[in-house]
């Protein structure tokens, strides 16, 4: 039985992108196809995720070449869930951009590129081969270069240069790491590499490769000393683009780190120590950076850095509870960060600015909408019933088990600082009176939009808020899934067996 379903989340965005390219100049049709394509991808991803939740690890040998030699796509519970969440976030961003992306950007291929980005994301979550992972990273960064520069505003290009430079550098470092591993062990398949590394004696060079991969993925996921490109670029493109960037691009780096440090370089106290130091520094530094910013999107950008730290901390501790917390945090963060950036875009549409000093009066004018935003923003902080609370609880519990006071302090400090940053947004944008409404009103286009377009902008935010509420209120089901993920990734032998014991019936 060949598990074709593994490849569908990669193929469907590709097919949609091709169809979109045939309608290059008809941006109206493109908007319909975008929603349809993302919708079908979401269904396929949902199906894949449900199949992985039964505990099986699905594999597909592309081109019928069997595992250590050919390219293999692997879907375990972690990949399945991330593909589902990525497709969901992309669906929502697609809906959001149907209205919020103008004719100018659409005519230069915004919609096909969004599909290619989703293809790259799903591909990297499903890749079972480290070089293939690199290729999907390239698909992601090439698409994201286009998305971040599309429109060619001055601020955008300035941000894009920083973004492009750092990401290319990260790719080079990542590729060097792969080259070293291949030179040492002669394999690129993750499962095969894992076996070979556990049997190898030449630990010095393997540790070097591990650190190279750590730096490469670290730049991509914007952890502590390598984060400065992120707040310099994520606030420049349109809100829809920063939503998908903020929600997913850094998480791919985190996913790659989880994969590599749970499958290849296991039980290395040196690397675990580095990870914990980096994690605690990212948490605190990111949150402190968020405090001084005045631009909503910059605040969220710094919060990304801080919250990446939480996941890396889980990876550093790597007990079962820590992994549950880390994976839960990853799920929660994808949804909430995408939502936060879309909310900032909506605030811009309603109030005409991203800067806190020019905002105000949201709560007075739109009380129900503000409550929905509050749910999204406070789940970012981790207020108890909402989705951010549970992963932090698990992470804290894990760090108390290890009696690692640095992580305990870091989590508590970062959570408080996040709370302060969110309260700052709340006070300035929602409760304060608008300082200069008459002037800002000129930039606001919201009132001219037809009803259906207003609905299309609000719907994705409502969907993601609902999902985030679901994660928080139905946490027991999510924890079950996280438990399954934790079982799978703390026992690499399960993954290795699934990949390598899948003979291909060659004709």
């Amino acid at each position, binding site marked *: 039985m060949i598990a074709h379903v593994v*490849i569908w989340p990669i*193929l469907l965005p590709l097919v949609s992108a091709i169809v979109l390219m045939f309608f*290059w100049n008809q941006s109206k049709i493109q908007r319909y196809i975008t929603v349809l394509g993302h919708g079908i991808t979401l269904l396929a991803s949902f199906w894949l995720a449900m199949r992985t939740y039964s505990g099986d690890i699905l594999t597909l040998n592309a081109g019928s070449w069997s595992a250590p030699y050919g390219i293999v796509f692997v879907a375990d519970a972690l990949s399945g869930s991330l593909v589902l969440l990525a497709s969901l976030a992309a669906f929502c961003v697609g809906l959001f951009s149907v209205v919020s992306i103008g004719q100018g950007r659409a005519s230069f291929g915004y919609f096909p590129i969004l599909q290619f980005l989703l293809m790259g994301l799903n591909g990297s979550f499903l890749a079972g081969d480290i070089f293939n992972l690199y290729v999907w990273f390239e698909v992601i960064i090439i698409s994201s270069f286009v998305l971040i520069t599309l429109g060619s505003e001055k601020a955008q290009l300035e941000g894009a240069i920083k973004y492009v430079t750092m990401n290319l550098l990260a790719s080079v470092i990542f590729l060097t790491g792969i080259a070293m591993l291949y030179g040492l062990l002669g394999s690129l398949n993750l499962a095969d590499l894992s076996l070979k590394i556990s049997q190898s004696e030449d630990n010095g060079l393997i540790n070097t490769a591990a650190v190279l991969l750590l730096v490469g993925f670290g730049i991509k996921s914007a952890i502590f000393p390598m984060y400065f490109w992120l707040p310099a670029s994520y606030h420049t493109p349109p809100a829809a683009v920063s939503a998908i960037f903020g929600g997913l691009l850094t998480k791919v780096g985190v996913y790659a780190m989880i994969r590599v440090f749970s499958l290849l370089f296991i039980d290395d106290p040196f690397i675990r120590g580095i990870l914990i130091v980096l994690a605690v520094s990212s948490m605190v530094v990111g949150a402190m950076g968020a405090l001084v910013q005045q631009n909503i999107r910059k605040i969220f950008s710094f919060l990304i850095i801080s919250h990446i730290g939480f996941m890396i901390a889980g990876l550093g501790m790597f007990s079962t509870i820590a992994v549950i917390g880390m994976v839960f945090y990853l799920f929660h963060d994808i949804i909430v960060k995408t939502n936060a950036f879309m909310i900032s875009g909506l605030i811009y549409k309603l109030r005409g600015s991203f800067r806190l000093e020019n905002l105000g009066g949201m709560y007075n004018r739109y009380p129900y909408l503000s409550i929905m935003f509050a749910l999204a923003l406070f789940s970012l902080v981790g207020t108890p019933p909402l989705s951010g609370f549970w992963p932090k609880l698990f992470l804290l519990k894990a760090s108390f088990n290890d009696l690692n006071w640095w992580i305990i302090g870091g989590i508590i400090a970062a959570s408080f600082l996040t709370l302060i940053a969110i309260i700052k947004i709340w006070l300035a944008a929602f409760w304060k009176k608008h300082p200069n409404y008459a002037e800002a009103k000129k930039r606001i286009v919201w009132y001219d939009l037809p009803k259906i377009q207003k609905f299309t902008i609000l719907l994705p935010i409502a969907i993601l808020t609902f999902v985030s509420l679901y994660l928080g209120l139905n946490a027991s089901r999510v924890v079950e899934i996280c438990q399954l993920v934790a079982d799978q990734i703390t026992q690499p032998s399960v993954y290795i067996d699934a990949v390598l014991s899948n003979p*291909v019936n060659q004709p």
Partner: protein
Amino acid sequence: MNTIILKTASKYLLPLLLLFSIFVLLRGHYLPGGGFVGGLIAAIAFVLHAFANGLPHTQRLMRIHPGFLMPFGLAISTISGMFPMLLNQPFMTGVWKKDPVPVIGSLGSALFFDIGVYLVVIGASLTILFTISETR
């Protein structure tokens, strides 16, 4: 460029290079060559023609915008990759016709994949080159 030698040569080189690019494309399965190189050679043919005769002339000769080849090529490649899935084989498995076809040799899904790559490469490289050499 306004030299009579290049102008005359490009008139003969264009069909010759295009033919050569198809030769390289078809020979690519076991020998050096393939869709990427073939596509580059075909693109060079048009670029040379544009150098000699001016861009508008070449664009008139091509009739369609080269960018239009990209979705076509991608579609052919993707369909050739997905075709084995209809036969319940994994994505991208090479499916071959049993008896060889005269001139082309053995016919399989890999050939169509390469044809797709060929078209994408022509489309992409000509779009880039035509865009940067356009004078306004």
